[in-house]
């Protein structure tokens, strides 16, 4: 089982993740071409302007008004992406298979970053359960997406600390990571791919086309 999930399934997951993402973006761009006005409303300068104002924390009025949400969201997303990419354990596996490696973050730090991601998921879950607006637009799929996001980190945390059933948890951890990768292009987790484009379009329309700003 371990050999399978850590061998062929990793390949499959990455192929689906990369292939699916490219396919989704290709489909979006080719569909956008049919819309005569879409690209003509776009400008690189204003797209970047908008992106910069929205990926730097507190760089727009809106985030300044919601400090807690902003802090949680930024730390959640930063840790979500950086932890798996720079984790020593992952890099060792990569080194063994392909003999390549890069900078890693110390395990102690990675451990805290994992906790940040899990805490972020709990925060989002709490909002989904308590905020009336969010609750009203939440269904099973939202909880599922939250679970898909949280599981690799929860299992990773348990596996790293070898709290119990190390071998089983490790297999679950790898499996959870693979499910998440596969899910990204085909679920609303695809906001990871698309937010750049939606942001760029709105930024361009507001900035380039309407001579205003979107932050």
């Amino acid at each position, binding site marked *: 089982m371990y050999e399978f999930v850590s061998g062929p399934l990793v390949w499959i997951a990455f192929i689906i993740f990369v292939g699916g993402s490219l396919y989704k973006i290709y489909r979006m761009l080719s569909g956008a071409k049919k*819309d005569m*006005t879409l690209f003509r409303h776009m400008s690189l300068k204003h797209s970047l302007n908008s992106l910069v104002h929205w990926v730097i924390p507190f760089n727009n009025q809106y985030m300044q008004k919601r400090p807690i949400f902003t802090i949680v969201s930024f730390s959640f997303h930063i840790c979500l992406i950086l932890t798996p990419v720079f984790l020593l354990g992952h890099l060792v596996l990569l080194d063994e298979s392909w003999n390549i490696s890069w900078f890693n973050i110390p395990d102690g730090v990675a451990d805290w970053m994992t906790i940040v991601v899990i805490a972020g998921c709990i925060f989002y879950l709490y909002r989904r359960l308590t905020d*009336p607006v969010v609750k009203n*637009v939440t269904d099973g799929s939202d909880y599922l997406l939250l679970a898909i996001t949280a599981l690799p980190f929860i299992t990773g945390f348990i596996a790293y600390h070898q709290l119990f059933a190390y071998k089983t948890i490790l297999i679950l951890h790898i499996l959870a990571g693979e499910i998440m990768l596969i899910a990204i292009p085909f679920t609303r987790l695809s906001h990871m791919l698309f*937010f750049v484009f*939606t942001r760029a*379009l*709105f930024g361009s*329309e507001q900035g380039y086309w309407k001579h*205003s700003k979107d932050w």
Partner: protein
Amino acid sequence: MKPTIAIREPVVDDLMDQTEKILTEEQIEKVINEVIDQETGVRLQTYVDTCIHCGLCAEACHWYLSNDRDVSFAPVTKVKDTIWVMLEKKGKVDAAFIKRCSQIAHTECNVCRRCGMYCPFGIDIAYMMLVVRRICAKLEMVPLYLQDTVNSHAATMNQMWVKPDEWIDTLQWQEEEAQGYVPSARLPLEKEGAEIMYSVIGPEPKFLAQLLGNITVIMKVAGLDWTMPATAGWDNSNMAMYSGDFEVMARVERLHHETAQRLKVKKIVMGECGHAFRGGEYDGPTWLGWMSPPIPIVHAVAFYYDLIKSGRIKIAKKVEGPVTAQYPCNIVRNAGLGSKLRYIMSAVCEDFVDLIPNDRHAFCCNAGGDTINCGPPWKKIRVQSAKIQSENFKRTGAHTIVTPCHNCHSGVEDIVDGYKLGMHVKFFSELLIEAMEIPEHLKPKEE
């Protein structure tokens, strides 16, 4: 997903009630899928796929904030109750659902685009509401009063059934009124090759004719070469743009621009109206495939800014006491004229008190985006849902609110009445005409 619980007082709208009775499910399915497949393309789908249901847009919406944070007014809820269901059921919905869609998109949303600015992904929720309106319009599910203005556009090319002779008559009457202030003032009709074509919206000749007199005086004092058309094409307003009848919208915008071309003017200057600017500058040219207007369009705020800044118009006596101004969404958030509005307000008022929040973050007057044109049946909820802006006005302590937009003007008047604010509501030109200097040689000679 469970349906949203929306508690609303029953409203009688003859057209919507009638349409509900005759619409068939086949018609509905066909129209929904047609619009979604052929007109929205990938944009709508990407928006729906990207939305993570975080609900942050709610904080942006004055409907939500004014109704004690009732979730059924939150922007994301409006999308959920319309587009999500249409996509999920692939258009297989009933007439009652379409009626509710029209109620949400036409009467409970101003497409002011504030929520787009609050979405971390920049999802343009107003665009989605316009898609809903488009579907409703193709199914003739439009509030009666709004549809009447669209019918007027289609038949007369102006919003208010103004007849050709009434139009010319009104202009000549206002020319005479203007000559009471400045005897040499002229309102030149059909002057080919003039520098400026001035265009207005239907309500000006209908019941705000004094604004035409004002501009006649202002143009004379500024010494500008201008004209107005004597034919259809003088009306720059466009309610069809908001009802979702884009075919009529395109006809109106095309005629407006073609009239300016026929008169061989260098630019169009338009009266104080927000949605008209949006139609002439963006939505019309985009739908027509021109992308940008063939002849530049200048909104009144930018026009007065140039006149005051260049010294063509001098201010003799500033308006006394605290005065505030509404920031019309379509010329500020969606056209960037906020700083110019502040400039002209400060130039003309002794004590200009700014709104908080101001500029592109300011709240909508809750009349724009056609909601006021939905008519008396929908007025109560509209005024009730402008509570947040009424509080903002009250805080300024101003005696007058300036509204450089017709929709804002009527909407803010309703706010002032509804919340007993005891403030005056004026167009900028009304302040300017009082404050500006009329040079000696232009003044009437005493007998």
